[in-house]
Every structure is written in C-alpha cells, then in structure tokens.
C-alpha cells in the first residue's frame, strides 16, 4: 500500500475511542477497501462532527503499518433520519465482519454509497426490507459467497417455479417433495435471484435465506446490532 494517500472517498464503519481524546476509525474506502486509521486528538478537534458514521468523507492518511495516521479530512454530510440508523449499523457490522482488509471493492463501495443516499431520501411509508436484501445480495456476490438460486447444486437441474426446495450451505439447493416450512418455493427463489421483491412472501423468503447465508459466513459470531435492535423494538 502507498505510503501517503490523499482525497480518498471513504465512509466510517465504526469508531472507537483511543486514549484520552483520539479515535480509531474503521473505514470503507474506494481504492483500499477496509482500513483502520488513527485520528490524534479527534474529540477536541474543530471538525470532530465529521468523524461520524453515515457521512461522505474525503480522507488522506500516511504510514506503512496496518494502522494509518489521518492527515486530511473533508466532509459532505448526509442527513439520514435517526430512526434509520439501525440499518446503517447493521450494514456496517456486516461489512466489518465480512470485508477483507485492504482489498479494493469499488463496486461494493458504490452500492454502499447508493444505500446511504437511499436511506437519506427515504420516505416513511417505503419498506426498507427490499433495499437491505438487495445490498446483502450485492455484498455476498462481490465476496463470492452468494449461491446460484436458479439451479440445484448436485443435479444441476433448473429451479422450477412450481416446486419446493431446501437450502443448506454445504449441499446448496435441493428439491424437497413436500412444501416444508423451512423450504423455499421455486418461484420465490427465482424472484430473489432477479431481485423482484414485490410480495411479502418473497421478502420473507429472502430474509430467511440471506440470514442463513450470512450467519454461516459469520462463523459463529453474533451480529450485535441485530440483537440490540431486536431488544430495542421489544422494550421499553
């Protein structure tokens, strides 16, 4: 990696306090993927408001070690409604766990930027489910973790809309005789593949399927943001 980088578009995935007034930022950048940057004295700086998740940033940094030192920051704030930050935290946590370090992910970066813009322009009555499922599929596809939903894994037969299938990460899609509750309708699978989330049944199936694939790839880790927001929706 270059020693000094300037004007790099980036988003903050997570921030951690470090020592008395410094911050360690986990960033998603356009050319270097996920990197960590130290911002000395960040909490006392005049531009402390920039170091927040959900803002479009232009950053510069230096250093050869895994932890870079921030040298430049410019910010174009996004006004994401507070209630929608649950989605931002969820997606950020997915990226933190799944993205490899210092690996360019341009397409995914643009998709992430698009997602945040969609959240910023979100109308209260629109459903976010389809937007989130679509992003999850992009993420899994870019990382090569998304299975083909149009074909059975072993038999290599095309998925039929009228039949039922079970999905397992090791054995892939497999036709099941009766439409069990854990299974997926062939029509639902084909709709998910084409990202046509136009019915509640398809959205529910997509959520179930994505969760299965994501949980497998998290290798036993729990998504804290998912757990927390389930808790918040239950209480107070």
């Amino acid at each position, binding site marked *: 990696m270059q020693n000094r980088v300037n004007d790099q578009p980036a988003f903050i995935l997570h921030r951690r306090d470090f020592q008395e007034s410094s911050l360690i930022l986990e960033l998603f950048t356009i050319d270097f993927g996920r990197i960590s940057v130290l911002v000395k004295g960040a909490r006392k700086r*005049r531009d402390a408001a920039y170091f927040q998740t959900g803002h479009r940033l232009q950053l510069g940094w230096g250093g050869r070690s895994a932890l870079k030192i921030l040298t430049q920051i410019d910010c174009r704030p996004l006004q994401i409604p*507070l209630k929608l930050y649950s989605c931002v935290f969820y997606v950020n946590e997915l990226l933190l766990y799944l993205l490899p370090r210092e690996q360019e992910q341009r397409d995914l970066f643009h998709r992430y930027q698009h997602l945040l813009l969609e959240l910023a322009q979100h109308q209260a009555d629109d459903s976010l489910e389809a937007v989130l499922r679509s992003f999850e599929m992009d993420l899994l596809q870019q990382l090569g973790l998304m299975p083909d939903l149009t074909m059975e894994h072993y038999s290599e037969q095309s998925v039929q809309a009228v039949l039922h299938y079970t999905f397992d990460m090791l054995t892939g899609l497999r036709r099941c005789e009766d439409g069990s509750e854990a299974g997926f309708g062939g029509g639902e699978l084909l709709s998910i593949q084409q990202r046509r989330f136009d019915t509640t049944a398809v959205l529910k199936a997509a959520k179930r399927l994505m969760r299965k694939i994501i949980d497998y790839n998290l290798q036993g880790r729990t998504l*804290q*943001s998912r757990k927390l927001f389930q808790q918040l929706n239950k209480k*107070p």
Partner: protein
Amino acid sequence: MSSSAALDNLIDALCCLPGIGRKSAQRMALYLIDKNRQGAQAIAQNISAALDKVGHCERCRNFSDAAHCQICENAKRQDGLLCVVETPADVMAIEASGSFQGKYFVLLGKLSPIDGIGPDDLGFDLLQQRLESEQIDEIILATNPTVEGDITAQYIADLAARYQIKTSRIAHGVPLGGELEYVDSGTLARALNARQLFS
C-alpha cells in the same frame, strides 16, 4: 531499571494513568519519593480511601460515597428536572457551568450497537423505575451530539413519552467566541434550524 525494586514497581503502577508513559511515570515517582513524601502519603491514602468508599449512587448512578450521592440528597435542587448524561465527567462539566439546579441520571455509556452496548448496560430499567415512581416534569437529554448519543437520546425520549414527561435536548450550535467561517457545516445547519427569536 533503578536501584530499588519498590521504585520500579511504583513507576510501573503510574504507567496505568492515561497519557502517562514510562518517562513521565519515572519523573513523577522520583519527585514523590525524593521531593514530596508528604504529598505521596496523601495520594496513597486518598487513593486507598476512594477505592474503599466510592461506588455508584443508587438513584443516579453517579459516583458516590454513600447509597445516594450529594446531588441526589441536596434538598435545594429541583426534583422535577432530570438531566441525562453519558458519564460522570459530563456531570462535572455541567456543574462547573453553574447553570443547572436539577438532578442527574448518569448512563455510564451510550447505546453502541456494534460494540453490543444495549439498554441493559445503561441502567434504563432504573431510569424507568424513576420515571414511574417520581414526579418528574422535564427530562433534559444531554447525551453527546454523536450518532450514538442521538440514538440514546431518542430511546430515552420514547421512554419518557410513555409517562407523558416533557423531554428537551440541549442546544447544539456555534460555540461562544467562535467564528462561523470555522464552524463545520453540520453544526451550522443545526444552529440555523434551532435559531431563536432575538430579543
């Protein structure tokens, strides 16, 4: 390594302080042992006493020597005004301003989804009990103006709404003596949106 193992241990122990490296710790240790033994004695006694006595107030979660802290026990302060802050340092900052005469509730953190810090870690059950059992007229949300601080404030506002308690958020904007040219755009936007009539 010095000529005394006890002195080395003292230097090591002082290194645990934030912002204190080995060189500073060595300077402090030598000063205390060589120049100010009386001061060192006072520090040792006070640290020991503080560790024995200081716990958390059962009502507001701030640091306290007794079950209830001095602020909660102060009859001159308004019971109906409750200021919610993230840390004891925030209480000290507000107290130093001398402009608040109500009581506090200290969360000892903020909702932080990715770090797994949820409502159970921030004493929301205790806060809810207070909202239920006490006559509180207004809650002032003084969590930090960060995304996590704002989410925490939103959560408490939702909680207070269940008990029909008025909530307010501390103002965010241009610092006194500051210049608009040097204020970031987000802060300036908030300051403009929350402008007040000039009288």
